[in-house]
C-alpha cells in the first residue's frame, strides 16, 4: 500500500513539475550548441581543446547573464561528443546532435577531412557550423556560401592557409636569421602523411619558396610514427639550414630530440608547439628552434589579451597542452555567435548568417574579427624562437595579402 502511495505522490509531483510554466520556460530558454571533437585517439591533443574553449565561452556568457534574443534571455548549454579521431564516429555524432539533440550550432571537428564530411549533415539542416581548419577553403566559394548555396551556414574560424603559411614562414625566417648569424637558404620539410599534413604542407612549401628558400625535399612520415631517425637522417643528407616539422605538435615533440641527437640541421621549426610546453618540459637545444602557435601562444605570448584568456582556460581545468591555443579558434566564435544572435534578434539561421557577416567582433585573437564574403577570417599568427641559451622571443606575424604565385 505504501509503495502505491509513494508511486502516486511521485507521479503527481512529476506531472506538476512538467505542468509548471516556470519549468517549461527554463527548458525553452536553453540554447544548445554542439561540439564534435577528438577527445581520444591520435588527434586528442588538439581535439580536447575544443570543448574546453567552447565550454569556457559558454560559462562566461551564462555567468554574465546569458544572451538576450528577441526580448528573452537565454542560457547556453554545450553538448559535446567525442569523435575518437574516427570519421565515422564524427559523422554519427553530428547526426545525433543535429537530429536528436537539435542543437542551434555546431563547433568542430578540428580534423580537417572530418569537417568536410560533417558539413554534409549540418548544411542541409541549416545548422550554423564553425570549424577551425583551413581545408574548408576547398568548399567555401562565393557560389557555395551565397543564400541558398550548399555551405551557406558554414564558417572557417582559421585564416586561409596561404595566409597562415605565409605569416608563419616569414616569422620563422625572420626570427631564426639573427640567431643563426646568417640568412638561411635551404629548408627541408618533414610532414605527417595524412590529409591535413598534405594540404597544409603544400601551402607552406609555396610560402617558403616565396621567401626565397631552396626546398629540395618534403619528407612525409606515416601518422603515429615514433622513430623519426630514418626520416631525419635523410633530411640531414641534404645539409639543410632549417628542418621544418610541419604538423602535428605531438609528433614534432617526439621528433625534435631525435633530430638534435642526430645533428640533422643547423636550426629547426616546430609547427603548433607552444613555447609554454617548451618551458614546462624544460626542453633545450644547442641550435635555434622556432615555434608557432595556432594562433596565439599561451606560454610566452606577445598578445596582452591572451594571458587573461589562458589563465581562465587553465583555471577551468584544461591541461597545459602542446596546442592549447587551438581552443581560441572556437572560444572567440561562441562569443561571436552570441553577439550575432543578439544582433539578429532571432535564432533563425539565415538572419544569424547575415549578422555574422556584418559584425566586427572583439575577440582574444584579434580586436577586429570579421568574416569575409566566403565565410573565412583573417588574423595574425604568433611565431616564437628559442635561442640556444634558452631565451624565447615571440612576435605576431601579419598574413600576406595575396597567395604566392605557384
Amino acid at each position, binding site marked *: 500500500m505504501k509503495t502505491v502511495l509513494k508511486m502516486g505522490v511521485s507521479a503527481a509531483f512529476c506531472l506538476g513539475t512538467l505542468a509548471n510554466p516556470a519549468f517549461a520556460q527554463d527548458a525553452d530558454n536553453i540554447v544548445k550548441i554542439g561540439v564534435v571533437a577528438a*577527445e*581520444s*585517439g*591520435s588527434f*586528442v*591533443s588538439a581535439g*580536447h581543446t575544443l570543448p574546453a574553449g567552447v565550454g569556457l565561452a559558454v560559462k562566461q556568457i551564462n555567468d554574465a547573464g546569458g544572451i538576450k534574443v528577441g526580448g528573452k534571455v537565454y542560457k547556453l548549454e554545450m553538448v559535446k561528443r567525442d569523435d575518437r579521431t574516427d570519421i565515422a564516429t564524427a559523422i554519427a555524432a553530428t547526426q545525433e546532435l543535429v537530429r536528436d539533440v537539435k542543437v542551434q550550432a555546431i563547433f568542430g571537428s578540428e580534423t580537417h577531412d572530418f569537417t568536410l564530411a560533417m558539413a554534409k549533415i549540418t548544411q542541409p539542416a541549416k545548422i550554423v557550423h564553425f570549424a577551425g581548419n583551413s581545408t574548408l577553403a576547398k568548399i567555401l566559394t562565393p557560389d557555395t556560401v551565397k543564400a541558398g548555396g550548399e555551405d551557406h551556414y558554414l564558417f572557417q574560424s582559421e585564416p586561409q592557409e596561404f595566409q597562415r603559411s605565409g605569416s608563419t614562414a616569414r616569422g620563422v625566417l625572420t626570427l631564426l636569421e639573427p640567431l643563426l648569424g646568417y640568412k638561411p637558404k635551404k629548408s627541408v620539410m618533414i610532414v605527417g*602523411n595524412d590529409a591535413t599534413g598534405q594540404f597544409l604542407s603544400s601551402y607552406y612549401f609555396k610560402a617558403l619558396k616565396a621567401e626565397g628558400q631552396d626546398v629540395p625535399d618534403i*619528407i*612525409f*612520415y*606515416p601518422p*603515429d*610514427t*615514433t*622513430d623519426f*631517425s*630514418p*626520416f631525419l*637522417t*635523410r633530411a*640531414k*643528407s641534404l*645539409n639543410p639550414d632549417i628542418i621544418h616539422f610541419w604538423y602535428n605538435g*605531438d609528433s614534432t*615533440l*617526439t621528433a625534435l*630530440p*631525435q633530430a638534435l*641527437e*642526430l*645533428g640533422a640541421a643547423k636550426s629547426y621549426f616546430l609547427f603548433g608547439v607552444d613555447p609554454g610546453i617548451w618551458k614546462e*618540459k624544460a626542453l633545450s637545444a644547442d641550435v635555434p628552434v622556432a615555434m608557432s602557435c595556432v594562433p596565439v601562444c599561451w606560454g610566452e605570448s606577445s598578445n596582452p589579451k591572451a594571458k587573461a584568456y589562458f589563465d581562465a582556460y587553465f583555471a577551468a581545468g584544461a*591541461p597545459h*597542452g*602542446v596546442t592549447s591555443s587551438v581552443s581560441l579558434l572556437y572560444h572567440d566564435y561562441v562569443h561571436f555567435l552570441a553577439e550575432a544572435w543578439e544582433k539578429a534578434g532571432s535564432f533563425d539561421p539565415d538572419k544569424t548568417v547575415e549578422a555574422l557577416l556584418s559584425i566586427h567582433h572583439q575577440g582574444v585573437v584579434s580586436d577586429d574579427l570579421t568574416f569575409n564574403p566566403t565565410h573565412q577570417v583573417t588574423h595574425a599568427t604568433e611565431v616564437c624562437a628559442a635561442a640556444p641559451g634558452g631565451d624565447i622571443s615571440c612576435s605576431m606575424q601579419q598574413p600576406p595579402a595575396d597567395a604566392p604565385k605557384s
Partner: protein
Amino acid sequence: MRAVDIFIQQILNGLSIASVITLIAVGVTLIFGLTGIINFAHGEFLMIGGIVTWLAVSAGLSFPLAAVLAILAVGLMGYGLERGIFRFTLERPTNGFIVSLGLIVVLQHVVVLFWNPNQKSIPRPLTTVWEVGGVRIASVRVMVILITIAVVALSFRMITASRYGRALRASVEDRDTAALMGIPVRRYITGVFVLGSALAGLGGALLIALFPITPFTGGTMVMKGFAVALIGGLGNIYGAVAAGLILGIVEGFSAGYGFSQWTDAYSFVLMILVLLFRPHGLFGGTSGPRMAS
C-alpha cells in the same frame, strides 16, 4: 655528410627500430603462438608499462628501478587479466580476441581518466651521443638494443632448453596428452601470458626512454608486433628476432631512400606475402591458436 655515413646511420636506425618491434613481437609470439590467446590489447600493456615508468621516474625513482616496476606491474596486470578474463575464453579464441579489443578501449580510457591524454616523457636515462666519422650513435639506443638482445636470448633459452620450455612446447603440440603426462597446462598458459605481459612492460619502459608516449601509442606498435610474429612464425622467438630485424631494416631504408610515406605499408605487404606463400611464417612456427580442443 658522405653517402656511406648516411648508409651506416640508416642501418643503425633500422637496428633500433627492430629492437623495440622485436620486444613486442616476442611477447605476441609467445602468447599468441603458444597459448592461442589473441591479445590485441598487448600494445596497451606496453603503453601501461610506459605510464608506470613515467609515474615512477616522476616520483623520483631511477630509470632502472622504474623499468623493474613496469615489468612487475604489467606482469601482475597480465596475471589478473589472464586469470580473471582470458582463461574463460581459451576454448573460444574468438571470444578472447573480442575481449582484447574491448580491453584496448578500457585501458586507454582508464589512463586518460587519471593522467589526461597528453604526451608523457621522461628525461633520457643516457644522454651521451658518440660521433664516429659522420655517424652519430645515441647511447640510449645502444642500451635498448643490448637489453633487447639479452632479454630475447634469455627467453629463447628458456623456451628451447629449459624443462619449462619443453613442457610448454609439448602442450602446444597436444594439450590433452601433455596434461595426461602431468604437465599443468593451464598454469603454463598463465605463466606464458605473464611472461609476455612482463616483456610488454619492459618494452613500454624502453619505449618511453626513447620517445614520448600517449595513451594511444599501443595501437601501431601491436600491429607491427603481430606482423613480425606472423612473418617470423608464431611461437618462434628466433623467427620473431629475424623478422623484426628484416622489418626494421626495410622500414629504415624505405624511409631513408624510398617513398617515406609508405614506410608502414612495407611491413604489412611483407606480412601478407608471407602469409600467402608461407602460412607458418618464414622460419616456421606453431599453427597458431586452435579454435577448440
